[in-house]
């Protein structure tokens, strides 16, 4: 260190008590207004998803075709009964958007969980064992990366049929190669660093090395990646809906709502606007959060700051 640039102090971070850590996270958030915004929005979105039945004014599936396509309350012909208006089947937009949070978060969370688990395990094995195993695993990963995403998704969707579980599975499978690549890269990087070598020479078992040395170092980059991928999945869901391959039309997912509203974009703009806004805000949230997490967790950035 040549310049006495003040350090954000990660090294001390590890030894501090949780109160201090919390306070520290608070300070970090305070400094990064984007991260702060992302954090607050994230909490709000998660709360919305959890308490959807409590918050939503109506049943999101309750149709009333005689009151279809009502504009938002502040426009002429709207009512506060349905503050954001109604869709083509007369269902309450606000309630559907609120319940849509559940679908999006479920898809994002479990999709990333599956992709992350699959990817991490294969990446770990590939990176750690190396040699032919590495070659074989990365070969498969690369094949999957080289196949056009749409062909893959459409075919899998056609085989499995349309439902929430399948959409999660599809994203879980198609997204796992990215996690595998990142994991493998990190494992290789960590393996080359001195401390794993010294642990090996000190006779530590493979399991110990994995759990004590490699896994803790993987968590940062993987959590960051997961955040971005969750945002991407909310997008993919909308894309799948565009092709009519996402969750069944009856499920109030933002993608479905956007897809239905697309054809009314100029006449009944609210039908497409709200889900669009919901997608944008959620994607924004995860991106802000991801940016911030990357700054805080990525060891490479940490290093370069010194």
């Amino acid at each position: 260190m040549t310049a006495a640039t003040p350090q954000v102090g990660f090294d001390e971070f590890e030894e501090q008590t949780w109160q201090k850590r919390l306070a520290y996270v608070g300070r970090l958030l305070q400094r990064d207004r984007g991260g702060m915004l992302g954090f607050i929005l994230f909490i709000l979105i998660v709360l919305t998803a959890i308490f959807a039945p409590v918050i939503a004014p109506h049943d999101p599936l309750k149709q009333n075709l005689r009151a279809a396509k009502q504009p938002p309350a502040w426009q002429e012909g709207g009512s506060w009964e349905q503050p954001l208006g109604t869709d083509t089947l007369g269902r309450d937009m606000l309630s559907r958007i609120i319940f849509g949070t559940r679908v999006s978060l479920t898809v994002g969370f479990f999709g990333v969980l599956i992709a992350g688990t699959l990817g991490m395990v294969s990446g770990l094995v590939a990176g750690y064992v190396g040699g032919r195993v590495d070659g074989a695993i990365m070969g498969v990963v690369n094949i999957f990366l080289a196949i056009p995403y749409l062909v893959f998704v459409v075919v899998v969707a056609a085989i499995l049929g349309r439902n929430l579980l399948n959409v999660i599975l599809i994203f879980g499978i198609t997204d796992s190669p990215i996690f595998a690549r990142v994991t493998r890269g990190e494992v290789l990087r960590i393996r080359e660093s001195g401390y794993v070598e010294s642990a090996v020479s000190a006779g530590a078992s493979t399991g110990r090395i994995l759990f004590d040395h490699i896994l803790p170092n993987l968590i940062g980059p993987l959590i960051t990646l997961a955040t971005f991928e969750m945002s991407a999945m909310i997008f993919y869901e909308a894309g799948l809906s565009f092709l009519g391959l996402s969750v069944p039309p009856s499920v109030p997912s933002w993608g479905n709502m956007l897809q239905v509203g697309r054809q009314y974009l100029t006449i009944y703009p609210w039908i497409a606007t709200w889900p669009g806004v919901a997608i944008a805000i959620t994607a924004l949230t995860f991106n802000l959060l991801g940016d911030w997490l990357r700054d805080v967790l990525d060891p490479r950035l940490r290093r370069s700051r010194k």
Partner: protein
Amino acid sequence: MEPILQVRDMVTRFYSVDGVVHAINGVNFDLYEGETLAVVGESGSGKSVTMMSIVNLIPQPPGKVEGGQAIFSYGEMAQDLLQLSEDEIRHVRGGQIGFIFQDPISSLNPTMTIGSQIAESMTEHLGFSASEARSKTVELLRNVGIPDSERRFNAYPHHFSGGMRQRVMIAIAVACRPKIVIADEPTTALDVTVQAQIVDLVKRLQEQMGVAVVWITHDLGVVAGLADRVLVMYGGTVVESAPVDNLYEDPRHPYTIGLLKAIPRLDATGEAETEELEVIEGVPPDLYQELTLCPFAPRCGYAFDRCWAEVPPLIEVGVQHGAACFYDVERGGPRNGS
């Protein structure tokens, strides 16, 4: 003799998440033409930041030079470097003041040939054409002891060993025949055997070019055979400034005294002396606090009430010898007027 560089009351601060870091708190020193000035201190003492601040090399933000002067005089010209615009100061950097950094591995651009990295500053400051710069560079490479320099012009940094890279760094620093070279711990990252070669190289070039060298180090041990004068820094201030012999024989600041006791000395036979090395008790000062007392007071065995109340200025204690201490070590009591 007029000093080539006069630094007065320089203050530099860093604004970070956790608060304001008071990195430099009123630094004063002079640098004379052709001399070697060693700047000594532990990490965080502000020795590098001082030198970076002079030529606007500290990262901004978070860093900011908030006060003082740095008068740079050569020939008829005299200008306050701190007042120059970035465009003006950058011609001083590289043109008049060259830098050698600690880690030659990360300090060279991995994607450019070493030749072009040297030639770059010649074309920038001396207005050389590409071919002129190239031939000068080859010459310079030879001069800093890189064999087969014609061919090595197109080599990349990763082809070189650490010592060779440091030679390249040195070539970069002196490429435009500057008046001052600031060497920031240039040997710390190198093998012991290479260290001596690098020191010799710098000395040789200094003689050839008559350049003043500021040698930043945390190791008082290497200073003895190298420097004309020494500046000891602590907590962002200069605590003692003296000709090198003076400092070793007659240190006047308790911190310097502590430092000197912590150096393992080799006697003529190469055996380490048997007497035990002393360690300075306590921790370095908290730079988040504004400086209102002697920064060394918490660790100082001689500290008395005044030391806790004000910042001691650099007091003339001998010929060219200053110490920032209210306590007169020689007399064994508070300095006169204290």
